[in-house]
């Protein structure tokens, strides 16, 4: 039977519950957001005892459905002050799914010290974890897999989470037990740290597996979806995602004039190709050794877009150099040395911070003169300071908005306190609408208009025109809220937006697990509900229309090469959610 597990860190009690009716058909983001909305006071301090961390695998996660190993983590965010869901691809999620744990709710606050949670079929136990405190995530995963075996999955926080930094993420193990898969955004690592949880080990030995109510429907659905993923030119084996990884986007965005450079002061990067997916793939091949493209973050992925970057001698340096990290710590800082970028990603993974927020923060710090744009050595030192918790590191660790305020910088690319990802709104108008209006703060994944605006996937739109973009952003936000609830990777969207039977198959696979007769309309309706719950939480937390705006500098400063300001009107932004 599907269950909720609840651990109270204030008194150490663990309870098992049967989910009530209203939660029965929810998973992933829908479930984390519903539980946070139901149980967390919107006005609570994100780092206090009233906040809760909710983990939920997607509805099909743990089954054989392709590319479905996502886990959602929800809480009130210390970075945005609003509701947050951040998801990651990891075998950890599949173990949770197979153990039929629909949600794990971590509440209260430990009086002192850090704790390890051990979760297996006999239940959940708390162990003192003073030996793990202060440890980087790489050592945490190594220590725990040695102690609990290679099969154990690990979730945890690095020193940044222990120090309750707003850029701290929650780390999960990858397929080969690297500390590399992050629910990075929104400072959820700080919330876990505030509760006194350093790590959680999961072992699904003897787990019953995901209950599938209608096997025939499920099989039919997963077959259609698999066919679509294998057929579509970007998701298929040997397609661009598989061959070049997500950083294949670097050159496209730069050529479109929409790659933010040197803290959002330009839209094209002269050295783009030096850090591109093409160059990453070429150098991995040339260096040989332990490097690889076509790496997967969890078993059962058809797309396999991850990579392992090797040092010059072929030994492993880091996994993974993906587009957002590559941009944030590369183009956004004027740094074009892939080995330096790899080292920064390795440090972020170990310290336990979001690579996007780190890169955006360093961009603001460089703007303030803390370092020169292009100075990779200094950038590496600054990330180390975050991990060491020096006074400067503590400031940077609170993210771009705080850093901008401390240093008197006005060019601070954030929405709701969260740093913008790798797409410049002045050159790609629709993505700015998503940044402004998603409940998550500046988040590209929340409604990826880059598909139609830049990649010509799911339609073709002029990126420089504001026309019709409110509807496009809204529809994608709804579809994404559904997708984030299924456990399917967002990249499946590239295939299902273009291939109708793929989308049908996705909905059928979910309906098969739940034993419902869901159609596309039900998927849309769930997505709309999720956005409503999240927006209502934010409203009660004090958010208004004024928070659904881009920073003022984007309306004042023209961005080369198109020399445009952000010209989507406030009325248009407010139209997205029908207000």
């Amino acid at each position, binding site marked *: 039977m599907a269950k909720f597990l609840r651990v109270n860190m204030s008194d150490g009690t663990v309870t098992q519950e049967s989910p009530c009716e209203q939660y029965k058909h929810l998973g992933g983001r829908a479930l984390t957001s519903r539980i946070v909305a139901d149980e967390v006071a919107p006005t609570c301090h994100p780092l206090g005892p009233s906040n809760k961390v909710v983990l939920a695998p997607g509805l099909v996660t743990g089954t054989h459905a392709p590319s479905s190993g996502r886990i959602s983590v929800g809480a009130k965010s210390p970075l945005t002050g609003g509701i947050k869901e951040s998801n990651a691809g990891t075998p950890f999620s599949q173990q949770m799914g197979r153990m039929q744990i629909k949600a794990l709710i971590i509440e209260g606050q430990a009086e002192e010290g850090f704790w390890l949670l051990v979760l297996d079929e006999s239940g959940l136990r708390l162990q003192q974890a003073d030996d793990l405190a202060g440890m980087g995530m790489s050592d945490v995963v190594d220590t725990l897999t040695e102690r609990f075996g290679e099969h154990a999955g690990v979730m945890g926080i690095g020193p940044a989470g222990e120090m309750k930094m707003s850029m701290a993420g929650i780390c999960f193990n990858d397929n080969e037990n690297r500390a590399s898969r992050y629910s990075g955004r929104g400072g959820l690592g700080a919330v876990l740290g505030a509760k006194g949880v350093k790590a959680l080990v999961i072992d699904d030995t003897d787990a019953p597996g995901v209950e599938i109510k209608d096997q025939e429907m499920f099989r039919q659905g997963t077959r259609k979806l698999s066919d679509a993923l294998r057929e579509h030119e970007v*998701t298929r084996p040997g*397609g*661009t995602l598989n061959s070049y990884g997500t950083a*294949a986007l670097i*050159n496209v965005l730069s*050529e479109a004039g929409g790659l933010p450079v040197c803290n959002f002061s330009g839209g094209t990067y002269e050295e783009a190709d030096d850090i591109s997916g093409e160059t990453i793939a070429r150098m991995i091949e040339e260096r040989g050794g332990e490097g690889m493209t076509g790496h997967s973050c969890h078993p059962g992925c058809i797309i396999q877009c991850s990579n392992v970057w090797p040092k010059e001698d072929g030994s492993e340096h880091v996994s993974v150099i*993906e*587009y957002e990290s590559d941009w944030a710590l590369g183009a956004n800082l004027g740094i074009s040395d892939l080995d330096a970028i790899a080292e920064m990603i390795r440090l972020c993974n170990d310290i336990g911070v979001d690579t996007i927020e780190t890169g955006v923060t360093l961009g603001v710090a460089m703007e303030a003169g803390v370092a020169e744009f292009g100075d990779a050595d200094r950038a590496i030192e600054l990330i180390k300071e975050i991990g060491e918790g020096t006074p400067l590191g503590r400031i940077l660790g609170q993210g771009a908005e705080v850093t901008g305020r401390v240093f008197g910088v006005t060019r601070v690319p954030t929405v709701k306190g969260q740093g913008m990802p790798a797409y410049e709104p002045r050159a790609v108008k629709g993505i700015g609408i998503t940044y402004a209006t998603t409940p998550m703060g500046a988040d590209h994944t929340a409604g990826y208009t880059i598909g139609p605006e830049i*990649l010509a996937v799911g339609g073709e739109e002029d990126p420089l025109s504001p026309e019709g973009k409110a509807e496009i952003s809204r529809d994608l936000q709804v579809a994404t809220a559904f997708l984030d609830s299924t456990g399917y990777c967002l990249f499946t969207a590239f295939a299902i937006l273009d291939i109708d039977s793929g989308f049908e198959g996705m909905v059928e696979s979910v309906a098969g697990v739940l034993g419902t007769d869901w159609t596309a309309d039900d998927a849309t309706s769930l997505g709309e509900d999720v956005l409503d719950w999240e927006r209502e939480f934010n409203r009660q937390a004090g958010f208004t229309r004024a928070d659904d705006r881009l920073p003022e500098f984007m309306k004042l400063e023209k961005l080369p090469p198109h020399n445009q300001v952000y010209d989507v009107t406030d009325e248009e932004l407010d139209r997205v959610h029908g207000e």
Partner: protein
Amino acid sequence: MIEAEVRVYATLRQYLDQHDRGVLHMELAEGSTVADVLQRIGIPSDEVKQVFVDNRRAGLDVQLDDGARVSIFPPIAGGLG
């Protein structure tokens, strides 16, 4: 004659002689189009998903000005991670 800087990306670099960085400096007749560039290099147009001319998305029939930068891509996605 006009000159154009042509940049070829991802899988399309297989059609170049020196596919290291995919940058070509080409001399073309006045009035040449994006399609003419593809034909000169030998890139099948059905493998081209999109083209940017001077940072704007362009169709195959777009005529090139002297000094144009032409960027040619196969289907690409990514970056949601």
